[in-house]
């Protein structure tokens, strides 16, 4: 079962040479990819439904309002739960006719009930929540089709160590806002670590910046930073901004 530490000499080649091990790495990467793609599939649905609402309206006082966005709720509720701890649409400032800033955002509270996240969205208020600085907003705004933010301490929404995934909502080429979802790191771990464990060597998932998301080794726990290490190799996870790092295997 799991071999620990670095591999060297002829033994070090086993993980690389053994087709079964290469297969375990492939499967682990596929599990990570499918887990994340499942969340993105939900976001693409939210994106399309939001875009349809926006497309039906003209800008100005008769345009889209907060109550129109409430039509998204049955869809959002359908996706909430399991891996997704929070999901919704974040309007670009100025999109709505009746509010300069708005989030149609729902999350599960500690008891598992659905609650709408209400933040102060009055720009004149001292508590004003300016969401346009956050990576999950700037990523899609700047043209990224799929953004993965974090893991980070999400002290404004989940109050936990989380990932936020987001996609842009555009209508006729004009940016209307983002569809986004929060995934708690501990639930993400629960979804992918069983597959990582099948790899007979220390293995962990890192984001594009090198932050560890989930891991099978205490040396590289979620939250730590992987800056490259001799004896470890990165494997791509689909075309996502994530990698699977495995000890003693040649990179893909």
């Amino acid at each position, binding site marked *: 079962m799991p071999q620990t530490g670095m591999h060297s000499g002829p033994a070090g080649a086993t993980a690389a040479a053994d087709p079964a091990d290469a297969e375990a790495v492939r499967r682990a990467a596929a599990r990570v990819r499918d887990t994340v793609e499942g969340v993105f599939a939900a976001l693409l649905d939210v994106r399309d439904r939001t875009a349809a609402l926006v497309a039906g309206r003209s800008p100005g006082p008769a345009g889209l309002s907060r109550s129109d966005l409430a039509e998204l709720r049955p869809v959002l509720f359908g996706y909430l739960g399991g891996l997704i701890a929070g999901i919704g649409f974040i309007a670009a400032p100025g999109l709505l006719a009746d509010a300069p800033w708005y989030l149609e955002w729902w999350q599960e509270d500690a008891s598992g009930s659905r609650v709408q996240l209400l933040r102060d969205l009055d720009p004149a208020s001292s508590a004003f929540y300016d969401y346009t600085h956050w990576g999950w907003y700037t990523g899609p705004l700047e043209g990224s089709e799929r953004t993965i933010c974090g893991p*980070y301490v999400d002290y404004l929404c989940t109050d936990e160590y989380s990932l936020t995934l987001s996609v842009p909502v555009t209508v006729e080429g004009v940016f209307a806002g983002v569809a986004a979802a929060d995934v708690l790191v501990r639930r993400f771990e629960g979804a992918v670590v069983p597959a990582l464990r099948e790899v007979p060597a220390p293995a962990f998932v890192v984001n594009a910046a090198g932050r560890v998301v989930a891991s099978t080794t205490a040396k590289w726990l979620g939250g730590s930073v992987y800056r490259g290490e001799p004896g470890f190799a990165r494997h791509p996870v689909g075309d996502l901004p994530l990698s699977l790092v495995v000890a003693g295997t040649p990179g893909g």
Partner: protein
Amino acid sequence: MAASGSHLAVFAPVGATGRVDAVVRRLADAIALGVLADGEQLPSEAELAGLLGVSTVTLREALMALRQQGLVETRRGRGGGSFVRTPSEPLELGARLRAYAVDELRDLGDHYAAIAGAAARLAARRALPADVAPLLRSLDDMAAVSGRVAGRAAGGPSGGPSVDAGSAALIRLEGRFHVEVAAASQSARLTQEEIRSQADIGPLLWLPYGDADGHDEVTAQHRAIVEAILRGDPDQARDLAERHVCEAMERLIELRLAVD
């Protein structure tokens, strides 16, 4: 986010003892020092009680005391609710400080320094450029606000509200800065503890210095903490963050000792 980190702090759950007093003290500090702005609507009674982790009975009692102090106004009916009333007379710091025993301040400082130090140490080990970006933005925002405050102090008219908008903004930004350092540690619990410490003493602790030297010193401390995190120097980051809290608390205790 803009200033909402400081609001989370104001509304974080209060401890088990003396709950009415604790709620009154916290909201009164936040209002008197401008962390909650004049005219701002407080969350509904049920929501606020839930946020603070107290019963609605406790909350109502606290709101009644705040109304008596003229810090909250409650309007009935449609569009009603409880609204913040910033006192028009100058801030009477002594009155605010009398609500805290010296021993209590010392203990709050010990606890807060431990949290801030541990968070800064981990931040220096774990922060990536994306985690430091909000800290740099907060430093810039603080510099912009103090520039405005200094400009007005030099030539502007005196008088006006008890707490000027500049010092209230600085308190909020200082709170935001410390929550961002804690979040850079990647620890949700340390971040929650940081928010709780701010709730307990933040508005008074981060009261801006009246003189330019004291202000420059605080600014230099912020920069040094960020630089130690950027350099990846955990020991230095911890020492600086601890000292930052300890010196602020020492100043507050000196002020407290001066009132009877």
